[in-house]
């Protein structure tokens, strides 16, 4: 019953870590809560940076309802969250970028996607691009951190893991593969501080021209398995999606490799 979540990762001395948190939404009741993936990101942050080296930021509105949700992060044992006040319809990326530049963390942890708003999952990518930092998505665990790099486990489909050495500073995204977040406790949640910061607001030009509508459930194609035995059915259910027609390039020049990738992207219609 004793949790080992707070086991400290080797070599984490004084790494400055930032975690970006948002206000989540409960899937059944729609009530505000700490966002599941963001909370997992904070959990990783707590295992990396004990004490005052973990900094949390939330960009968005700070209404009474969202305050309760943000306090749920504080309840994990965190002293404060910087709230970058941004109205609805603002592009939060510039504000977060400015905050990160000023803070200068070695590692930025983000949930893979939010539970409200656009929830496109693009913020970490945009931030990494603007800051010129490395990006790793689907982080399962951080194994070790030293001055300039860290070793992490990245989650791949079907429970596979890939060990990566990542140059710091880096932005990482965290999803269901990471360890669940610890319980949020009332006492620290009540004591922790929400520091409201006035930050420049950049209107989100693109989003203003969009029309939004509630999502509809799309019909799903049924996978018809013609299996005669339980073993076949199990194999069909557990089988990997067959890529087929793939091509493994080894020992080619960077130029040839890049051309092959471009060709594939054109064929698939990703690039036109």
């Amino acid at each position, binding site marked *: 019953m*004793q949790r080992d979540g707070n086991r400290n990762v080797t070599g984490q001395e004084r790494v400055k870590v930032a975690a970006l948190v948002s206000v989540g939404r*409960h899937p059944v009741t729609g009530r505000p*809560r700490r966002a599941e993936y963001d909370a997992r990101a904070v959990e990783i942050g707590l295992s990396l940076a004990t004490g005052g080296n973990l900094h949390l930021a939330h960009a968005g509105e700070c209404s009474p309802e969202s305050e309760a949700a943000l306090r749920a992060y504080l309840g994990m044992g965190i002293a404060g969250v910087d709230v970058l006040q941004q109205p609805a319809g603002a592009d939060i990326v510039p504000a977060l970028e400015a905050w990160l530049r000023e803070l200068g963390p070695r590692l930025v942890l983000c949930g893979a996607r939010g539970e409200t708003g656009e929830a496109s999952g693009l913020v970490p990518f945009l931030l990494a691009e603007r800051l010129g930092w490395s990006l790793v998505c689907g982080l399962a665990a951080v194994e070790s951190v030293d001055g300039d790099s860290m070793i992490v486990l990245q989650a791949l489909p079907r429970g596979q893991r890939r060990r990566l050495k990542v140059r710091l500073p880096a932005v990482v995204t965290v999803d269901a593969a990471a360890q669940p977040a*610890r*319980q949020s*406790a*009332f006492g620290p949640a009540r*004591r922790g501080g929400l520091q409201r910061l006035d930050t420049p607001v950049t209107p989100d030009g693109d989003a203003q021209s969009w029309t939004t509508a509630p999502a509809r459930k799309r019909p799903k194609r049924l996978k018809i398995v013609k299996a005669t035995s339980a073993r076949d059915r199990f194999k069909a259910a557990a089988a990997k999606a067959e890529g087929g027609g793939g091509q493994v390039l080894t020992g080619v020049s960077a130029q040839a490799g890049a051309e092959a990738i471009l060709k594939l992207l054109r064929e698939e219609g990703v690039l036109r």
Partner: protein
Amino acid sequence: MLDVVLPVLVLGALALALLGALRRIGLWRQGRPSPVSVLGGLAAMPRRYLVDLHDVVARDKVFANTHVATGGGFVAAAVLLILVHGFQLESRVLSWALIAASVVMFAGALRVAARRRNPPVRLSRGPWMRLPKSLFAFASGVFLVTLPTAGVVPASFGGWALAGVLTLVVAWGIAEMFLGMTWGGPMKHAFAGALHLAFHRRPERFGGGRSTGLKPLDLGNPEAPLGVGKPADFTWNQLLGFDACVQCGRCEAMCPAFAAGQPLNPKKLIQDMVVGMAGGTDAAYAGSPYPGKPVGEHGGDAHSAIVLRGGHEGGRALVDAETLWSCTTCRACVEECPMMIEHVDAIVDMRRHLTMEHGNTPNKGREVLENLATTDNPGGFDPASRMNWAADLDLPLMSARGSADVLLWMGDGAFDMRNQRTLRALVKILRAAKVDFAVLGNEELDSGDVARRLGDEATFQALAARNAATLAKYRFREIVTCDPHSFHVLKNEYGAFGASYTVSHHSTFISSLMEKGRLALGEWTGGRVTYHDPCYLGRYNGEYEAPRKALKGIGIKVVDMERSGFRSRCCGGGGGAPITDIPGKRRIPDMRMEEINATKADVVAVGCPQCTAMLEGVVGPRPEVLDIAELVAAQLVAAPAAAQRAKKDVAEEVAA
């Protein structure tokens, strides 16, 4: 010589004892304030001792008599000793009375010694083993030194040598009895116990009353501690209560978690709190340990943490978290404790700190508490599906009706397929009796019982406030529920938030319907039936009769288990225990099922969704588990003569 030595001895010991008392009081006052009526409490103390405490002690007849002789003899002897030998009052009458008191005490001490010869395991050993000898020393010493004063033997009898020996014997007795009372020792229970009775935190318990609802935390005040993290966070009278423990182990013998080999022993827990209050380690503890946890490895003091944060390898504080999470809050220990110590309050106080400060509720705790906060039920079900079980029943909703005689509180069992059968049976009974009832439907929320027992007072208070606000919108005469946990919380714990209702358990309501002749019932023709008293109905609310009456109403003669009524053993389902799920050697429901099996019953009647779930979870072959509502509903007769009569009664009632 004796008339020189004795006054010094007696008065000196008295002075030292007084000093010890001041020190002891200082230890208690490390606790937080708790308002009590000092004079009222002291005035009520003798009655509380003679009536309430002895009612509990008298469950063990032999020992009760032993205690009356020893304790009564001692109190009389001590007072007379101070008068006759301390202040040298020359009175034959007093001297003879003192001799008589010492003889009575001696007789008692003989019985104490007999019990200590082969003591039951629940009793602590250690210093307690020397107590009979000390009692002998006191009684016989006082007897002998009083013979000259009573004029039986000349004052010079025996000479210096004998006087010296007697002085030593009396000194031993006085040291144990007077100094031990306040400096620590078995006799401490007399001093602390008397004051504990006077300043009890739940004075309502005396004089046949009942006080079982947990005390609310003041969440509005950010300075108030969230539960108990260190011994000094207890209120002073809780600390005083711990000090009153006589280590009789009656609580230990009743505790289901202890019996199941989970790491909890209520007696040891109380002793650990004494260790924490005074500072030190538990090495001197001489009773049964927490199962699986050796004695001597834990310790602490009044101002350090009781449970280590994170509870990691190697580090130990006063108690381990899993000890606190093993408790089912069944109150068997409280019910049995002759010193009226409140174990459950203490355990929940410490759990509050673990949940609300450490954020460390074990196993499914986190999930359940999050579900309660986000979906208002522990299972995380869609709150809009609370009424799905009754989709075909067309139940009247309070929101549509505004008022009804009876508000049927469904409880979270509404989400559980097994309990839905009970609910349906209950609805059938209510309809057969033409009861005017309605339900809250999806407006109902979890009562907050589990959140509160898991130490999450914030979630409990939030649920309580919202439920109370909903209930305040409607008019009803009483709430009826088939869930004793909701029953207890609505009846005894919402009151602190200004919401009080008349609440009945469904068994009470059904038996009153039977009494009024509003149910036409056939006779039970099945096999033997035993009944399992739910803790939250029985010990928490004193309802032992109604369920038996309801069963009698359908012709069932209940074959009671050995542990039944106020001594019923918990099914293991209370206090969030199935959620925190601390491993032991056995499972509590398995032990209970063994007791059920011992009655050779074919059916075990229950009155609680938790009990149903726990007992049905026991592997067969085992008796069938049926709720009282199901048993009664199965006997409803379509419309025989009796029903006609019942109808007429109803008509008359309506007319009246």
